[in-house]
């Protein structure tokens, strides 16, 4: 099965090449894009199964053994995130086809989407620091172009800040890579984990902090999040939904990977917990102040990132398992919420809360889809967010970290409050303006995401077990290094 791992990156790249080659044949482009992403989903599920039975699927590209060649690793953690991410990529692609099909505005959409898929997959399965950079750049360059699909002065202005900040982060990332190579003489993550054990602790913590800053910008943690709520809402819904669901979470994924593998500590990190608390609080306060569906949801991305960092901050098996569970739940719920927001916009022509209302009577299906997602985001039982939050709180109490537990509970309450604001604004009340029904495909795609989020709640038990096994691998770096260097 060694061919399966590289193909999660290579197949989307191949598809991207083909979509350019065939030119302006929309049906064919769609078929290629759909089958490409569907392939990655099947491969991701197979990889997850393999990782769960063997510990990880490892591939050495070009037949060069680690640490000399390019290593790809899909352990349980990467497998889980890759599977959930590609499921969302498919749902959003279907949604985009239904929405953009109407004006068929952009011939290159599928190419960019496939490159984005390849970038996400590479960032998740790469086994060395430089290919992580390559994966991130693929993802980001595709995202720069996707953000400006619907070009106007507003979009370009919002995208400018996104591009500039991400370029700064990428440059800083290159500096970190150079530093790391200078002190350790290798960029292979497993090899680095071994080399860092004998490194001067001061140098190690400096590198750890720099890495945290780089991926903190990408993941939009406090205080490096300001670019996000500004740039996301201006893009077309499918683009915003996939960015909201995936891009920042890939940043969180890498933070968790590097902090556990390279810069692991024995006790909970007060710095990370402080960042987590501040991220949640600032994000949710920002959301409350907004008056547009997509802007509210964008601030909630920031707020929710805090919970994932909180799980990482505990640096225990249970804490990390909760963080993994939270990422899984959040990718689905956030993508779904943005798709619902897009449906509202498509029907009403605006996302401004004070200009819409009464959707509950006219289009109850949208309300039915919004409710479980919103309650899940706030962590109300029995929805998926509750399971993840409960796990976080239990671990927080077990470790005697009362402050962060209190903060996270208060933020949950405020999250619920801002969700009721959307509910009241969009679904209750009266409206004057007539609405246009959204395309059927958009509703179907949104519905399947909602179903998946209910599935996460339904299968919370097995998922939590899987997340615990994944977290156990993360806590002990020797597991990862053994799989890559020993088993190679």
């Amino acid at each position: 099965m060694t061919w399966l791992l590289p193909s999660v990156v290579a197949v989307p790249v191949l598809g991207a090449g083909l979509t350019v080659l065939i030119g302006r044949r929309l049906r064919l482009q769609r078929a290629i894009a759909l089958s490409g992403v569907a392939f990655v989903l099947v491969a991701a599920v197979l990889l997850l199964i393999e990782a769960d039975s063997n510990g990880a699927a490892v591939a050495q590209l070009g037949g060069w053994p680690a640490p000399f060649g390019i290593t790809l690793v899909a352990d349980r953690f990467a497998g889980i995130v890759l599977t959930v991410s590609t499921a969302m990529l498919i749902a959003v692609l279907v949604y985009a086809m239904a929405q953009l099909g109407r004006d068929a505005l952009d011939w290159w959409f599928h190419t960019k989407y496939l490159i984005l898929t390849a970038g996400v997959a590479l960032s998740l399965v790469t086994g060395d620091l430089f290919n992580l950079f390559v994966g991130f750049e693929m993802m980001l360059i595709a995202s720069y172009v996707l953000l400006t699909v619907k070009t106007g002065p507003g979009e370009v202005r919002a995208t400018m800040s996104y591009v500039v900040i991400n370029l700064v982060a990428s440059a800083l990332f290159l500096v970190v890579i150079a530093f790391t190579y200078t002190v350790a003489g290798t960029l292979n993550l497993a090899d680095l984990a071994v080399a860092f054990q004998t490194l001067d602790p001061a140098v190690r913590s400096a590198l750890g902090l720099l890495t945290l800053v780089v991926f903190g910008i990408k993941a939009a943690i406090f205080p490096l999040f300001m670019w996000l709520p500004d740039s996301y809402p201006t893009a077309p819904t499918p683009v915003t939904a996939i960015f909201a669901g995936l891009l920042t979470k890939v940043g969180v994924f890498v933070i968790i990977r590097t902090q556990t593998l390279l810069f692991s500590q024995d006790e909970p990190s007060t710095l990370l917990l402080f960042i987590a608390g501040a991220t949640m609080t600032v994000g949710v306060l920002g959301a409350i102040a907004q008056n547009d569906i997509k802007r509210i949801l964008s601030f909630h991305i920031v707020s929710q990132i805090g919970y994932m960092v909180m799980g990482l901050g505990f640096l225990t098996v249970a804490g990390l398992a909760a963080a993994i569970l939270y990422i899984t739940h959040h990718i689905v719920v956030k993508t779904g919420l943005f798709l619902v927001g897009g449906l509202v916009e498509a029907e009403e022509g605006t996302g401004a809360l004070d200009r819409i209302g009464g959707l509950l009577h006219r289009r109850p299906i949208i309300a039915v889809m919004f409710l479980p997602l919103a309650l899940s985001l706030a962590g109300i039982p029995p929805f998926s967010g509750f399971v993840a939050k409960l796990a976080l709180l239990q671990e927080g109490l077990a470790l005697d970290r009362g402050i962060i537990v209190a903060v996270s509970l208060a933020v949950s309450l405020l999250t619920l409050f801002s969700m009721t604001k959307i509910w009241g604004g969009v679904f209750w009340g009266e409206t004057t303006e007539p609405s246009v029904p959204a395309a059927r495909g958009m509703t179907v795609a949104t519905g399947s995401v909602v179903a998946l989020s209910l599935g996460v709640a339904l299968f919370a038990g097995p998922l939590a077990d899987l997340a615990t096994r994944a977290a156990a691998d993360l806590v002990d770096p020797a597991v990862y290094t053994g799989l890559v260097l020993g088993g190679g």
Partner: protein
Amino acid sequence: MSSLRGSAILEAGVITVSGPLLVFSVYLLFAGHNQPGGGFAGGLVAGIALLLAWVAGGMETVRRVVPIRAGVLLGFGLTLAAISGFASMFAGLGFLESGYLEFSVPGVGKVKVVSALAFDMGVYLVIVGMALGLVRVLGEDETLDAEAAS
């Protein structure tokens, strides 16, 4: 730059330089396996040749030199590079692992053909396609052409 358009010296210079540049780019492509070079460097050099052609003769010349859409080059290169990775898997090697054929050509000596060359060619085409696309998008500026005409 526009004031230089139509200058005989520039045109003669570009014609003299761009031929060897293209040949050099192909040399880099083949030399890249064991020496500095490769598809990326080769493609960049070929891209420079295209840019020079644009500087000297504008879009007309570029279109005459490469009568192919940039997208076709890009798409073909990307597809070729990806397929070359899978091809070595079907040959029983690892993904992107290079196989090679060795044979002797009379008068030349031993020739070694590596399958990684297909990947490099793909990269080369992507870079040339990108350069072409850049020249087309940025170079097809009406104001610039109008300036050149005046």
